[in-house]
């Protein structure tokens, strides 16, 4: 097979989404990135089923895989490797992806990589860019808020993280308290644009364990008490509350970027994960990086949420020798047991 005809299939089933992507193995170019919640199914007797059942990976997986290959314009026979998320995530969900990937790799007699989901997010801002090291990476989503020291594609250490809620959870739960619906992040972002971020004072929490940690759980309580105090929560107050709480979350994150940058000079700062879609975060991180005279890469919007493309990309970047190309990929049930400074490797 000619070198430029090599394709890798990236698979992620770690939590809510079943996602497949096809990438050119030589360049990392993403040819398709298919996510289950975006697929509309035509019901047999007319009408459209809103979306595939969330987390029902078993039911979704073949369909999403077929669509991803079709969108990329290739057949499974043209694949030269497969990459799948092996950890962290829900064991039942990971197993569906890993089993499917193993079976397909075995059938096609091609290599299989196991990828750490967080490494996938962490490296995703490099997609389509020139990777720079050392890199200060922020992964910020509904489930994770953590800063990493990325020395190379394989040498990654955790610098600090939240001790309770992730930033995305803070957005969603505060939105719930304000009766704004789910997912709350995008609604808060939209309403905040019309609000005054100085209207309410939400202080950034200090964590006793050390400056490398963040805490967002106090925000919910603060919003709860503000809501209780008001006799009538007008649209105007809601907008001000959204602007103020968003500004506090963003401040907590940007302050930490400056804090870690002061300790070590990095060549680039990256931001990835679902909350990287937040417009104020993108703006303020850019400002902080401009002040620090360091370039900033933010994950492209289509690669912020969980997706297969980042898994394929991480596998392409992390592979060094044929050792990784084995069928010996197991989903791991252990999550969140990482120690500070402990390395995140392709195999953890």
């Amino acid at each position, binding site marked *: 097979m000619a070198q430029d005809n090599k394709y890798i299939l990236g698979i992620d089933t770690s939590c809510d989404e079943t996602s497949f992507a096809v990438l050119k193995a030589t360049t990392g170019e993403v040819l398709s990135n298919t996510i289950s919640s975006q697929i509309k199914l035509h019901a047999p007797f007319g009408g459209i089923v809103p979306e595939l059942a969330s987390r029902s990976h078993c039911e979704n997986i073949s369909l999403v895989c077929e669509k991803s290959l079709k969108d990329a314009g290739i057949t499974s026979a043209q694949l030269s490797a497969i990459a799948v998320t092996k950890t962290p995530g829900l064991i039942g969900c990971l197993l569906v992806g890993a089993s499917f990937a193993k079976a397909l790799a075995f059938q096609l007699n091609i290599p299989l990589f196991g990828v750490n989901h967080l490494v996938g997010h962490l490296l995703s801002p490099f997609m389509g860019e020139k990777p720079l090291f050392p890199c200060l990476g922020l992964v910020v989503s509904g489930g*994770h808020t953590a800063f990493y020291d990325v020395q190379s594609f394989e040498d990654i250490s955790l610098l600090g993280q939240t001790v309770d809620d992730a930033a995305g959870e803070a957005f969603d739960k505060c939105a719930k308290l304000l009766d704004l619906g789910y997912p709350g992040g995008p609604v808060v972002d939209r309403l905040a644009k019309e609000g005054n971020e100085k209207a309410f004072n939400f202080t950034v929490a200090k964590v006793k364990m050390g400056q490398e940690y963040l805490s967002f759980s106090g925000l919910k309580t603060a919003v709860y008490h503000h809501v209780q105090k008001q006799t009538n929560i007008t649209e105007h107050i809601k907008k001000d509350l959204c602007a103020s709480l968003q500004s506090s979350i963003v401040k907590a994150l940007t302050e930490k970027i400056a804090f870690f940058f002061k300790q070590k000079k990095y060549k680039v700062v990256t931001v990835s994960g679902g909350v990287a879609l937040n417009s104020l975060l993108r703006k303020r991180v850019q400002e902080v990086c401009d002040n620090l005279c360091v370039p900033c890469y933010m994950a492209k919007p289509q690669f912020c949420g969980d997706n297969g493309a980042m898994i394929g990309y991480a596998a392409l970047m992390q592979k060094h020798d044929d050792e990784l190309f084995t069928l010996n990929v197991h989903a791991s049930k252990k999550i969140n047991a990482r120690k500070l400074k402990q390395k995140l490797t392709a195999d953890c």
Partner: protein
Amino acid sequence: MLKPYAVQTISYDNLTTFSKQFTKELKPKDVVALTGVIGAGKTTFLRHLLSEMGLCLESGFSSPTFTILNQYELPNVLINHIDLYRLDSFTELEQIDLISLFEPTESMTFVEWADKFEELEPYYTKRLHFDYSSHSPTERLITCYAR
């Protein structure tokens, strides 16, 4: 049926004392329900409790609202920390094979938003219900339930 046996007013500062006291009541195989509205202190309580039980907080503790399940290996016992907040149906629990963690095993299980699905009620051995207090923003009323 779980019955209430105590109501305590706890401030953030004496959460450690309360956690210490509650640790003594826990047994392996316990499936503990944690209930109460957003921000009532379920996750914060559990962070204090697991720290009392030997969890090194530096190794990572976080809310499982989005991840649904976090597991911690303590010196003597495996802890399952489950959050049902984002689940819409009991079927989803089965789809992601979470239901097996409610069966008595050698591990200890804590479940936030435990009252979302009636089907789970028989599994719980203890329950703590968290309420905001009208006296102070840092105070909570905790109602303890047992069989």
